[in-house]
């Protein structure tokens, strides 16, 4: 049964009154029982509540799934998202397990294998200094992923706070916060990034902070819109009537209701941040040697375009591509899973 997850067993029988007249004659009493058994799953019919189980509903258990169970079911049906999740997990394990997984130590030079194309010994080839490209890619991935995730978390946090405050209090607070948001949106980001990084230094932390400062506005806008709609719900009124303060209402009553959009945005921010970091690094404003990211591996291999060494561009580029794509698919899957109206 393909629709079992969305439609409860009882809803499944709703289609049954449409018997053909001719076929009603063929109907055997046993058919219904068989259908029920198949439809509901044998164990549900046979397994009456055992001792200690809920006594509420003897016989067939009602649909009693938590929000999270429903969420996971919907998510699991989004095959691309599940596959992407696997890809990302593998990527994270590979990169952060680099010290165990990488075939060579970091920055180890094999002077006998100065730029060599991919081979059995060096899967991704070696670079100009004879370093194993596979090893380097994995270590570089640590920085790229770290920055991507850090930026996503940080910008989501900032954006959620600003958006929730603006949406909940409305009035001049809203105006003030949203005009600040607009201000951040209209500045030419690359220029600001470049200047900020020149000014504050090029450490990984600083890059993450600066990127987060340029990423939170999108989350803030989404959160504000969601809060504006949820704050009008009666349960918020009920929370106020129960004596809850504004911060408590926001954190305990409103935000849990909009965790979906927030998580989707956070996921997409990871992809955005990885790209932004790559761009920065490519332009030379990003992470500085000796630490490497995928972006600055690309930057280092700039001259390889059109030469036999072009493989130096392919692999870091491919990693960025795969990661960003997977993150985006994951975001899509989460969006669908959080949206109870989606019936894909």
């Amino acid at each position, binding site marked *: 049964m393909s629709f079992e997850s969305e439609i409860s067993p009882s809803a499944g029988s709703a289609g049954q009154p449409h018997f053909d007249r001719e076929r009603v004659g063929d109907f055997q009493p046993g058919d219904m029982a068989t259908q029920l058994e198949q439809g509901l799953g044998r164990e549900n019919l046979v397994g009456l509540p055992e001792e200690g189980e809920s006594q509420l509903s003897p016989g067939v258990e009602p649909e009693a799934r938590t929000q999270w169970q429903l969420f996971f079911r919907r998510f699991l049906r989004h095959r691309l998202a599940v596959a992407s999740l696997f890809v990302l997990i593998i990527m994270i394990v590979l990169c952060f397990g680099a010290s165990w997984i990488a075939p060579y130590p970091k920055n180890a030079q094999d002077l006998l294998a100065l730029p060599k194309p991919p081979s059995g010994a060096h899967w991704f080839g070696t670079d100009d200094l004879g370093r194993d490209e596979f090893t380097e890619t994995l270590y570089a991935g640590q920085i790229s992923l770290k920055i991507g995730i850090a930026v996503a978390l940080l910008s989501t946090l900032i954006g959620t706070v600003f958006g929730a405050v603006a949406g909940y209090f409305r009035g001049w607070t809203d105006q003030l916060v949203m005009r600040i948001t607009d201000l951040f949106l209209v500045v030419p980001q690359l220029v600001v990034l470049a200047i900020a990084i020149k000014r504050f230094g090029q450490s990984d932390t600083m890059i993450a902070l600066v990127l987060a400062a340029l990423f939170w506005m999108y989350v803030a806008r989404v959160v504000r819109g969601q809060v504006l709609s949820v704050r009008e719900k009666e349960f918020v*009124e009920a929370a106020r009537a129960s004596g809850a303060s504004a911060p408590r209402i926001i954190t305990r009553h409103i935000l849990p209701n909009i965790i979906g959009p927030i998580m989707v945005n956070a996921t997409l921010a990871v992809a955005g941040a990885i790209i932004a970091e790559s761009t920065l690094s490519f332009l030379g404003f990003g992470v500085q040697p000796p630490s490497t990211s995928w972006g600055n591996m690309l930057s280092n291999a700039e001259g390889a375009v059109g030469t036999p060494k072009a493989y130096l561009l392919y692999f870091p580029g491919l990693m960025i591509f795969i990661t960003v794509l997977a993150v985006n698919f994951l975001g899509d899957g989460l969006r669908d899973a959080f949206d109870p109206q989606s019936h894909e």
Partner: protein
Amino acid sequence: MSIDESGSPPSGAYVEVDPTRGSPPKGERRPKTAADFDAADDRNVPVLQVRDLSVEFKTDDGRLLAVQNVSYTLHERETLGIVGESGSGKTVGSMAVLGLLPKTAQVTGEVLFRGRNLLAMSEKERQTIRGRRIAMVFQDALAALNPVFKVGDQIAEAINVHSNVKIATDDERVVDLLNLVGIPNPKDRANQYPHEFSGGMRQRAMIAMSIANDPDVIIADEPTTALDVTIQAQVLEVFERIQDRTKSAILLITHDLGVVAGVTDRIMVMYAGRQVETGTVDDVFYQPSHPYAQGLLASLPRLDRRRDGERLYRIKGQPPSLIFLPPGCAFNPRCPTAEVGRCDVTRPDLVEVSPDHLSACHFAADLYEGTKAATT
């Protein structure tokens, strides 16, 4: 009457008391005299006194007078029914009591809760009263329960808001509360979500939340309107049971006269934001002294009176816009007894037709005498 001047103690100082226990947890904070307890009837200790409450909204078309000069007193253990049609100011009036109206509302008058004026309090002070001393039950329990939390969580939250000791979803107190409002299998139910509850159960869960802190006043805004009749009766019974245990005063807002007749002690009839008649249930039902109240009652189908094909009475016309209220008595365009030159000029004051029975009609006394003649 002892007035609680001390205010609510700082949040750290709350004393944890079993909310289901018979005597309220106010012992520490509100010293009561023995006489208070000994009196068989607590119904003369005023808990909530509303004086001259008016609520006004500024709109593009002019001033909208949602509630005008409403006054009433609610005593301990008393149930006051506020009756009126949609838009008569029932809900707005009760929201004003808790200070839950949007900032655009201009609220004037006094709302004295045990002698302290709620309207003069800061928002922070009011938060300590809301939910703890005055709780609210909403009409649509499905909307008023947060869909993403277990019911037990929400009841626990109602307690946690006012206490430093945090309790969990299936805490004994939560289970006791669910049990008190008549939910079978409270332990399992506490771990379920609102959408897994039936309509009546949700309303019970709402009531459980409202009584979680053993409030002095429960404001129930159409608590039974969304329920079918049998469930209605059960929910009303829950209110009565709670009242027996907790001495809470209940402000029951409804448009169902049947509900009012069944469970309230006194009634206040509202029309177009004004109070038109107030009295005990018997006063208002048997000797209605305002044409509107008379019309409402006459329009009820009744089994105890033969009508022999006679049609039910109806009040002609429609309730007025609250922005363009008719001059004089708001009811005069629809009133069968209205007198030109008087009713459409002067707004009638509330007059006492018998002890504690008030009517806002120029002809209140005559109407009262009329009903007396009819019943004897």
